[in-house]
């Protein structure tokens, strides 16, 4: 088992790439830089493949396969080791991350070819790969947290890649800080877990947690609180309400970054963590419900905003948020494997979409506003085709990947009876409506971009198809987006859903909501629900077609008709403004005027200097007694005499000095 013994190689390779490029890449030509970067990622991809191969040779009891490399933090009964772990869940994540990541690296060589700071870009990208791999392979929460923060750093750097643009720098900062807010919860979650179980290693911790009985719904037991705190972190990382605000801004970064970090991998870390901690969540139905509701709400909410955005990347960003919402919905209703499944397919088609969008932007010469596009389908065929595939996939048109994953989520949602039998149906309805919106805005994107008449002048913009290095990854991803979902296809014919089956050893552990009981019901509902889903998708597509191809002037009038609503959507429900007004500005004002100017300068320092002042004044007074007049001096002597005599002869003046005792 060479690789499984030395799992550390997988993350280390990108790190080396990052180090080499970061330290020496400055002076190197692009060729060497990107060969280093791609080499590193590719290598780790194949290493991962090898690892997976070996993994399949393991006997079940060897799983989860944990290797401890060195002890990182030790204090008292607390130990955080650099321990890596491989189980089915890890395998999925591992392949997605390395695979998609590699493709995107390749794509980037084309996309970034003309950018400055080439070496920096790839160094960051590799760094990201390293931390992401740490995240998915970590065997304890602390190490996971390392990856967690690390990817945050990487995304900060990459969003702020064009640091000359203030917007970019702001976006990067925003991303990091919002994530920090999430991490705050995550850390507290860890602390609480450690206080309860006095370990943070997954295996030990879950072993201790499994025998516990689940906490009744609506009850804030330790586990519930811990799970909610963890979910807070997840919400930060995966851009869920209320911490989603950073993701749209994150589109300031280069498009490949958006594809890799803000669509395919990093943002799904939250989902991964929830899935990873499913044992705890299974014991905390309240938390589960919260997760489901938040996820569902986010999905719907983001989708609505997506409807009206005109920036091609913004649309995709909000769709990402919404899709992430789906995944949480899945987890929330206990369909963890479904969530992970969607995570995977989403990684394929969303990466595809972003890259295609990038290709479009590349073709248009850095134009992102869809209102200045149109009719590109002829000019950039391959881009169009691949992107169309992606759209079909996300819209949930069978038999593409999105259809299966989304369908299994809706199904589980429909079945869930967490707390109240109707909960499931509500969630299902919301999810379904979201699906409608999704397909609408995606097709809207397609029609605005590729069909209709050109809304740009050819003289300035000469559209050109992207280089091979960009199209090949597109193609591959397109294929994946098509076939990626077939793993689950057998479920329709009563056969086991291979993907779920594969993950079963991970998720089947506790309550057993996964598989088993669900199976039977599932089979009965499979077809009708799928049909419904399909129809909604078509509806959405048709609506878009009708509005943006048939009656191109309709949207404007509609927008005018629903003026208020439209503007609200356009301004993303004014959430950013709200945060600024409710939190940021007050805090700033408070810090400046109250804490610094008042408390620090006026009160504390004022007091200190005031005392000094006072003493000086008294000192001046004392000096004045030194009048220089001998007669007064004589009087002073007399005064002294009286004082002494008084102290000696009248004991009752002494208690005035009683403090002396």
């Amino acid at each position: 088992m060479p690789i499984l013994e030395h799992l550390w190689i997988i993350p280390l390779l990108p790190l080396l790439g990052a180090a080499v490029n970061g330290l020496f890449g400055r002076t190197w030509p692009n060729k060497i830089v990107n060969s280093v970067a791609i080499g590193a990622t590719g290598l780790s991809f194949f290493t991962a493949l090898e690892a997976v191969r070996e993994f399949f040779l393991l006997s079940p009891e060897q799983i989860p396969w944990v290797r401890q490399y060195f002890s990182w933090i030790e204090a008292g009964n607390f130990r955080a080791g650099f321990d890596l772990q491989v189980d089915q869940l890890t395998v999925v994540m591992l392949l997605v991350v390395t695979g998609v990541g590699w493709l995107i690296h390749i794509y980037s060589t084309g996309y970034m070819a003309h950018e400055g700071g080439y070496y920096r870009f790839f160094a960051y990208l590799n760094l990201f790969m390293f931390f992401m791999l740490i995240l998915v392979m970590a065997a304890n929460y602390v190490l996971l947290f390392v990856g967690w923060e690390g990817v945050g750093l990487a995304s900060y750097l990459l969003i702020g890649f064009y640091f000359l643009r203030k917007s970019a720098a702001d976006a990067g900062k925003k991303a990091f800080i919002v994530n920090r807010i999430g991490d705050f919860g995550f850390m507290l979650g860890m602390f609480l877990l450690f206080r309860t179980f006095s370990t943070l290693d997954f295996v030990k911790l879950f072993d201790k947690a499994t025998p516990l009985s689940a906490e009744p719904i609506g009850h804030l037991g330790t586990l519930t609180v811990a799970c909610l705190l963890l979910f807070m972190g997840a919400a930060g990382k995966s851009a869920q309400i209320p911490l989603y605000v950073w993701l749209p801004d994150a589109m300031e970064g280069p498009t490949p970054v958006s594809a890799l970090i803000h669509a395919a991998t990093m943002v799904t870390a939250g989902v991964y963590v929830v899935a990873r901690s499913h044992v705890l969540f299974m014991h905390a139905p309240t938390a589960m419900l919260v997760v489901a509701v938040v996820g569902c709400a986010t999905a719907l909410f983001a989708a609505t905003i997506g409807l009206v955005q005109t920036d091609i990347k913004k649309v995709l960003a909000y769709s990402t948020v919404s899709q992430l919402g789906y995944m949480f919905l899945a987890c929330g209703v206990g369909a963890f494997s479904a969530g992970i499944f969607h995570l995977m397919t989403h990684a394929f088609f969303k990466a595809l979409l972003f890259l295609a969008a990038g290709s479009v932007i590349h073709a248009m010469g850095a134009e992102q506003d869809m209102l200045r596009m149109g009719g590109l389908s002829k000019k950039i065929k391959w881009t169009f085709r691949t992107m169309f595939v992606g759209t079909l996939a996300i819209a949930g048109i069978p038999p593409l990947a999105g259809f299966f994953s989304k369908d299994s989520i809706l199904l589980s949602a429909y079945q869930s009876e967490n707390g109240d039998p109707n909960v499931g149906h509500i969630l299902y309805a919301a999810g379904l409506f979201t699906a409608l919106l999704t397909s609408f805005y995606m097709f809207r994107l397609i029609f605005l971009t590729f069909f209709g008449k050109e809304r740009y002048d050819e003289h300035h913009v000469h559209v050109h198809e992207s280089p091979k290095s960009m199209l090949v990854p597109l193609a591959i991803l397109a294929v994946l987006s098509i076939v990626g979902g077939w793993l689950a296809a057998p479920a329709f014919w009563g056969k086991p859903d291979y993907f779920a089956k594969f993950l079963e050893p991970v998720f089947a552990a506790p309550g057993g909501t996964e598989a088993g009981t669900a199976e039977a019901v599932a089979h009965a509902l499979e077809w009708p629900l799928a049909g419904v889903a399909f129809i909604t998708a078509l509806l959405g597509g048709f609506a878009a077609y009708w509005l943006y191809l048939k009656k191109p002037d309709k949207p404007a009038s509609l927008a005018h008709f629903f003026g208020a609503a439209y503007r609200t959507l356009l301004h993303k429900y004014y959430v950013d403004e709200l945060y600024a007004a409710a939190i940021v500005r007050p805090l700033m004002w408070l810090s400046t005027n109250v804490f610094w100017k008042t408390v620090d300068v006026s009160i504390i320092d004022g007091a200190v200097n005031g005392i000094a002042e006072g003493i000086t004044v008294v000192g001046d007074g004392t000096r004045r007694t030194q009048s220089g007049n001998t007669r007064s001096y004589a009087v002073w002597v007399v005064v002294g005499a009286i004082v002494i005599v008084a102290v000696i002869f009248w004991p009752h003046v002494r208690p005035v000095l009683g403090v002396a005792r």
Partner: protein
Amino acid sequence: MFPRTDDLLRALPELIWCGFGMLAMLLQPFVRSRHFFTVLALIGAVAGTAAAFVAGATPGEGFYGLIESDVFSFFFRLLVGLVAVLVVLAADSYLERENLPFAEFYALLLFATAGMGVLASTRELLTAFIGLELSSISSYILAGFRRDSTKSSEASLKYFLLGSFATAFFLYGIALVYGATGTTNLSRMDDADPGSNLLKLGLALILIGIGFKVAAAPFQIWTPDVYEGAPTPVTALFSAGPKAAAFALLLRIFASVPAATHFWFWAFWVLAALTMFAGNLGALLQTNVKRLLAYSSIAHAGYILVAFAAVTFMANDLNGGATPAYAAVLFYLLSYALVKIGAFTIVSEIGGWGEKNLTLDDYAGLAQRQPVAAAALSLYLLSLLGLPVTAGFFGKFYIFKAAVNSHLIWLAVLMAINSIIGAYYYLRVIVVMYMREGSAEAMAVPAVRFPVAVNVVLAVTAIGTVYFGLFPNQVLNLILQPNLIAR
């Protein structure tokens, strides 16, 4: 009825000092050389100081119990002798600069020293009075030694008037004590009734008289003026010698008069508190360094009085509970004398002809102009401030210890507060010397090259300050004994 040899031996230092004083007077008409007299005075001072060992070697009472040669008097004789030596060295160049009559100066200096010696060794109030007058009158004259300077003469006048005013109180106190106990010999008052109001009053008046000499508030009032007006070497003498001697007398009185029991610590408590604040607060805004040091010497008198409070508090404790407090006083006086003489010597050197440059501005940028002087002065100031590896630190430490030992926590806290206030103005001088750039003309002044004698003074004081700051053991072993003051 010629006195016995032992008596003479026990009084030897004073006799030698006086003898050399006379010698100086007699030779004054015949010898014109300054150096001759300097050497003469030096020999005299040293000889007297050496004689202290002789006297110390023959312990016991002398002259029918008027004087006592014990460790206590030994220590103080050494101290005042050392002061005399240093002042002679410091004065030498000063006298030339200001062209003052040197023979008389040294003579008076030696007589004053003799007076202090008497105060240190006497055990009888009348003798003490004579000694006090001997040193005081010499001091009056020395204060006014720069005849043509109005300031000097004014200082002399004020010192004289107020001094004799206080002396009158002291004397009246003696009278009352005599009336109450039928004797003026401290060692014969054991059977006196401690409750007697007459005795209390007498002691109170004596306390007033001595309090004036040691510049305890509110009798400190004369100090700044006199210190400022007097010729600087004389100021050095005042701040070190007479004060130490007066404290010695006070200590002996309150150590050996049974009536001066416990409750007297109240008086010292008040005096100490007042004095500390008077000194430190007054110094806070001083821009004249000489005057600033004067105020600081008031403050330090206050600190010493804290130790006195501790002493008197422990008065009833017969098994040597007060010993550390005594030691504190003695050690502090030693460290303080060294520092003050050093500091004033530098002031007198920097002062220049007619003592013109005394303000802080004249010290600006001193560190560049005269690094050694600046370093030395900072060392002294730090010692006054009570920072470690200086004798001043241990001095303060022992006083704190004595105070806490006598449960005078609050007095200790007051002292702590005062140390902070004091720190401010001491630091200000250092700051000026090191952190301010001197004014153009100040920097233009060529570096004054100190005479050898002065350098010797600085060396002795500085080294002494550091040495006692690191290894106080010898001194402590000397003064930390229950029979420090023979009863």
